């Protein structure tokens, strides 16, 4: 068997793994990255990137349809048609370009990439089963960055017409009738996109609201838009069974048992860490529930073994994995590093978009909580975008005005994430934001307005 020796071995070429490997490589660490499928992981291949491309195309098609007939803002188009094959070709092109970009990045960093599935022999040795036979890799440090996979609903196994998000992005045509089980952000994003592409979409959610982790004020604009798009919402509803031949999804909801006739069932009830077949059971790493327990240096309970990204506890987001990857690369390269982030921004590319950075109001004791909102109804920019649904909300500490959380819902608010994260990460006060000029007319002004409302007086009320 071939043997490879290195300083750092990264298992998984997703956003966490490739950032870690490339950064370590550029710092002169002899690094090997093992990837079982395609570089870029879930994010680039079957997650963030293709889904955002799909959402963009669906939005364009939806706008064109609104512009047909009597038109929109005086823009009138003839009845648009959808060439979904061309849409998918474009999506694939975006993905391919980014994936090859990752390959180039790793190459320039001097990282050796091995294709295959890695399995721990011991804490420092892994057997990689690849297309050209097995390779034994010995490393001083190992990073587990194998990510996550879609969770299944009991009684509704994946296969046939029951698909996960990967399957949804691989469909050659939008289904005529689509049931989405789980109204978390993935289900809402894809459900909305397919509705805009013409599918009849039914959302089935066990909780009494969509995006149950957020408060009702934040999700109300999204829920309203789902109704506008003709998406059927089945809240407080459980899946009872599935008849693959008939294409019938049985659910039990508030109005009693019901049978939905659909062509596809998209299951988006969350994701679980993907550690099967890694041989972790031999290492006996300390677990945190289903996740691998790590400290603030992403160290597991075994010396020299690190874990980053979706296999560790925390929001399953690419940018968190990337930041963890940086921490581990720095530690392995002998630099001082540690996870000390104040916030991990979370974006839902729903319609309208939802942005959450830092603490939600409920997470702050009421006695010392100051919440301030600025509605987009008064925003000039929102009016010119013809989309005034939404608001910016600041959660601050009443006693010293330190910002603790910022949320926004509205058109394109995902792009506001940077400013909000900067404010929280740097410990700014309401007064700092209120005294910073925000460009007019932009949606970003809502942030300043909300800060002013909490400290002094608003310019527009």
């Amino acid at each position, binding site marked *: 068997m071939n043997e490879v020796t290195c300083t750092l071995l990264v298992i998984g070429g997703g956003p966490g793994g490739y950032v870690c490997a490339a950064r370590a490589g550029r710092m002169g660490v002899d690094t090997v990255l093992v990837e079982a499928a395609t570089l870029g992981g879930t994010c680039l291949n079957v997650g963030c990137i293709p889904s955002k491309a799909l959402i963009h195309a669906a939005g364009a098609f939806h706008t064109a349809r609104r512009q047909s007939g009597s038109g929109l803002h005086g823009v009138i188009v003839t009845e648009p048609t959808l060439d979904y094959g061309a849409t998918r070709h474009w999506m694939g092109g975006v993905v391919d370009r980014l994936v090859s970009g990752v390959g180039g990045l790793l190459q320039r960093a001097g990282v050796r990439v091995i294709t295959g599935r890695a399995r721990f022999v011991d804490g420092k040795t892994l057997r990689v089963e690849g297309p050209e036979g097995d390779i034994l890799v010995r490393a001083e440090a190992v990073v587990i960055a194998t990510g996550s996979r879609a969770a299944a609903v009991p009684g509704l196994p994946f296969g046939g017409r029951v698909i996960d998000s990967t399957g949804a992005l691989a469909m050659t045509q939008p289904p005529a009738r689509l049931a989405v089980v789980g109204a978390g952000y993935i289900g809402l994003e894809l459900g909305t996109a397919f509705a805009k592409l013409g599918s009849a979409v039914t959302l089935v959610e066990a909780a009494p609201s969509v995006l149950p982790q957020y408060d009702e004020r934040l999700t109300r604009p999204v829920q309203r838009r789902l109704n506008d798009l003709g998406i059927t919402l089945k809240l407080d509803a459980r899946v009872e069974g599935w008849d693959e031949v008939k294409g019938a999804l049985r659910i039990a909801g508030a109005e009693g048992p019901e049978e939905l006739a659909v062509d596809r069932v998209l299951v988006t009830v969350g994701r679980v860490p993907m550690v099967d077949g890694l041989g972790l059971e031999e290492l006996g790493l300390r677990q945190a529930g289903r996740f691998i327990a790590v400290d603030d240096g992403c160290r597991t309970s075994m010396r020299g073994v690190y874990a980053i990204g979706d296999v560790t506890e925390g929001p399953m987001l690419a940018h968190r994995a990337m930041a963890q990857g940086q921490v581990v690369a720095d530690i392995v390269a002998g630099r001082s590093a540690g996870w000390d982030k104040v916030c991990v921004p979370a974006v839902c590319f729903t319609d309208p978009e939802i942005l959450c950075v830092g603490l939600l109001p409920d997470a702050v004791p009421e006695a010392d909580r100051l919440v301030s909102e600025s509605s987009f109804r008064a925003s000039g920019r929102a009016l010119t975008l013809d989309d005034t649904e939404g608001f910016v909300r600041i959660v601050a500490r009443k006693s010293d005005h330190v910002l603790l959380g910022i949320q926004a819902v509205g058109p394109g608010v995902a792009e506001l994430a940077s400013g909000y994260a900067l404010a929280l990460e740097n*410990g700014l006060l309401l007064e700092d934001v209120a005294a910073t000029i925000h460009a007019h007319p932009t949606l970003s002004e809502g942030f300043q307005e909300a800060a002013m409302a909490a400290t002094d007086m608003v310019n527009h009320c």
Partner: protein
Amino acid sequence: MTEWSFTLPDIGEGIAEAELSDWRVKPGDVVREDDILCEVTTDKAVVEIPASASGRITWIAGPAGDMLAIGAELVRIEVDGSAPPPEPAVAEMATAPTAAPKPRGASVSGQARLVARGGDGRPLAAPSVRGRAREEGVDLRQLRGSGPAGRILQADLDAFLSGAATAPDRARQRTGTEEIKVVGIRRRIAEKMTLSKARIPHFSIIEEIDVEALEALRERLNRTQGAEQGKLTLLPFVLRALVRALAAHPAINATFDDEAGIVTRHRALHCGIATQTDAGLMVPVLRHTEALDLWQTARAIRELAEASRAQKAAPADLSGSTLTVTSLGPLGAVATTPIINHPEVAIVGINKIAVRPVWDGGTFVPRRMMNLSCSFDHRVVDGWAAATFVARLKELLEVPTLIFMEGGVDE
């Protein structure tokens, strides 16, 4: 003259209680409005509490280290005239500006007073500052930031690092010695300790006491009668409990003449009370403790301690004890191994009260707990006898009603 009472203001952050970390005043001090009375520490911040009125302090809530609930009485100030008391102090962070004037209050005076915390409880600092601190091995929790809301700035880190580098006692070798002659009281202490520790084979028992009931009783008595009778500390209660416990354990209240081979059991309790003075440890003796009531005991302890500290104690007050009690008050540690006052056969050590989690059979509950650390002369007191004596003391202190019940089973 009017006496006003001031409570611990709400210092924000949703906290229910704070630790009195430092008193800047004591009863008798004259303060002016806005003078700092004390510093209180929450798990998030250190906040200075200023006086809301000018006058003379007549009472303070408790020693530094005590936990005090928000809204509990903090100080009493005697003021001139009979004007109504001002609004209670309201915590206000100096850096939280507002359009409306706020009531004066516990300002975090000037800058660099507040230990600022972010939403996750970690020090408030920009990522660049955190990163540099990590590189330099500085724990940012040691710093007090000078930025808005106490945010730690690069300049604060600079100052901390340069201060640490030039601190005189840091990483510098020193030479030279100092000789101090052991004379006077110090010499007597040395001789006494040598005798005790060389002759007596000590063993110690440390027992945990739940003092919730005792403290509640003490607080109540101080509230209702403290003004006229004088404030009660814990010690008089321990002495009353000792009197009760010794009735059934006469072997503990004894002296041992090891040369003659005779143990003398005493019917009277002449209680030695270890007292720290400027000159060193003194053990004034409270004679016939068994014949005093609670208030008399308290008064007698006070008088003896004052006399010893003033070095005015009569020789008779410093000898003839049959059992000694030692207590360091708030410094009383978790446990101690007290040295027996020869020729006695036991000594009772009182450790400090602390709130500890206690398993009540279903959950952990916060209880005020205090340890007793007692040492015994194993030549004449066996472990079993000592343990039953300590267990009895524990019972009496945990159910203080038993101390004051007439005709108890011991007598």
